[in-house]
């Protein structure tokens, strides 16, 4: 039963890693750059919820969730407009360095606004349910349900709607998409809003499960990187599998190594994949899929 519990908590954390990874892999797939500031969208989502739940607004958890996700999306669009778009004709490494700069600005702003201490939400979801002898927390169920619903919605959006097809077209062949006159501005907004919103949702779930920490964005970014590399850059559903694999591997590892070192797993996966299979496990082609 101990291992089953580890497995379940691994899948639950993995579900949040998958949510973190969507934006990172979509931005790479569409705009061909790695956004090092993506982790701060996770952290700002989590802290944004706190902001709306504390006085003066004092919203309920349910009422604060949508504005928190929206805040993260606005930050993403603002960063894109101010830091990335003016550099879009420059070398990829220039935008990458700009994104590292943006991550410092966003993280410092977070610390300035909320302080450096650990925080937690003024509500607690501490219930557990018993599933055939295995204890599962309500938060873990919420994590898995949120990821399942998000990826189902994302799949529908990318396959069935016009904007989703435009997103995949830009990722597949940006030159042809421009010749066809597909709406780049709408695609840009969709990619950033979806990526930031899902990252923020993941951040909120992690915040419910443990604490809010100004550096949570950085550790989230590492997990997202590993998930993106497993899935193959640009592959949204590869990132889902990647996230679940990392979460599970990490949690099962605590049976043999100290939980304090479990972040080692994500780093080891990044290292090995970059060394042997940089195109991802289910590789082949590029593009948002």
């Amino acid at each position: 039963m101990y291992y089953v519990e580890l497995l379940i908590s691994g899948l639950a954390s993995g579900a949040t890693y998958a949510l973190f990874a969507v934006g990172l892999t979509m931005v790479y797939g569409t705009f061909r750059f790695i956004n090092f500031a993506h982790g701060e969208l996770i952290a700002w989502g989590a802290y944004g919820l706190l902001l709306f739940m504390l006085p003066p607004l004092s919203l309920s958890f349910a009422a604060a969730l949508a504005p928190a996700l929206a805040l993260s999306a606005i930050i993403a669009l603002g960063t894109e407009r101010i830091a990335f778009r003016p550099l879009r004709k420059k070398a990829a490494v220039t935008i990458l360095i700009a994104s590292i700069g943006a991550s410092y600005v966003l993280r410092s702003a977070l610390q300035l606004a909320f302080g450096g201490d650990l925080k937690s939400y003024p509500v607690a979801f501490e219930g557990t349910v018993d599933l055939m002898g295995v204890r599962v927390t309500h938060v873990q169920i919420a994590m898995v349900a949120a990821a399942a619903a998000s990826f189902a919605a994302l799949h529908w959006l990318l396959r069935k709607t016009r904007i989703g097809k435009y997103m995949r077209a830009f990722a597949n062949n940006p030159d042809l998409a421009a010749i066809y006159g597909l709406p780049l501005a709408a695609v840009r907004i969709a990619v950033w809003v979806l990526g930031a919103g899902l990252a923020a949702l993941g951040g909120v779930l992690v915040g419910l499960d443990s604490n809010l920490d100004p550096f949570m964005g950085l550790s989230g970014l590492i997990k997202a990187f590993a998930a993106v590399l497993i899935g193959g850059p640009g592959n949204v559903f590869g990132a889902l599998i990647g996230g679940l694999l990392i979460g599970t591997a990490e949690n099962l590892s605590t049976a043999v190594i100290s939980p304090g070192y479990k972040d080692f797993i994500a780093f080891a996966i990044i290292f090995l994949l970059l060394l042997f299979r940089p195109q991802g496990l289910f590789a082949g082609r590029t593009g948002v899929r």
Partner: protein
Amino acid sequence: MLLTVENLTAGYGARPVIRDISLDVGVGEIVAVIGPNGAGKSTVLRAIAGEIAPTKGRIVFDGREISGRSCAENTADGLIFVPQGRNVFDQMSLRENLELGGHQIADNRQLKERIERVLDIHPWMRARQHGAVHALSGGQRQRLALARIDLLDPALVLLDEPSLGLAPDAVGEIFSGIRAMGDRGVSVLLVEQNAAMALAISVRGYVLEQGENRLTGKGGELAADPRVQRLYLGG
């Protein structure tokens, strides 16, 4: 004239690739631009299409000056550009490619009807409409790229090297398709490496060399011209 280009100069960065190019395409005409590799043939099309901005000259389409307008605006006005090489979305399905080709048709039902019409014209596409495009042959992909013409009913099509990299029987099929477009009243400005085939279906040809107009003439006369034969037809 449907399209009149006068003294067009364009390029990438500061140095022009084409200088003072002039050409005309009348309604329902197929006109070819031929010339050796690096003569600037593709650049002519890209400048007319709106992919690159001309530094000098006039482009008049359907009575209106269009230089500096975007590809999207030109597509909406009935001037479409089919580029060479990667001219389909190979990670998407055939049907999705048609949907993207007709994205400017805002009404979903109307778009669906147009796609049905394309599938009626090309029955092989119906069988493979939900399959991924990267599984198609080179000739099939090229025919899919050209199907955008059946979808949008443009007045003028700019075709860049439609025979590039295709097997000989596929090339024949593509060229008879282009000739059929002309018969339907669609005007075509065709850039080709395969000068003999291009001139055979064109009313007029322009020979480009090092970014400049060298020769102009009727399709058949140009193909018989000893200078052209020596230069490009291996005669």
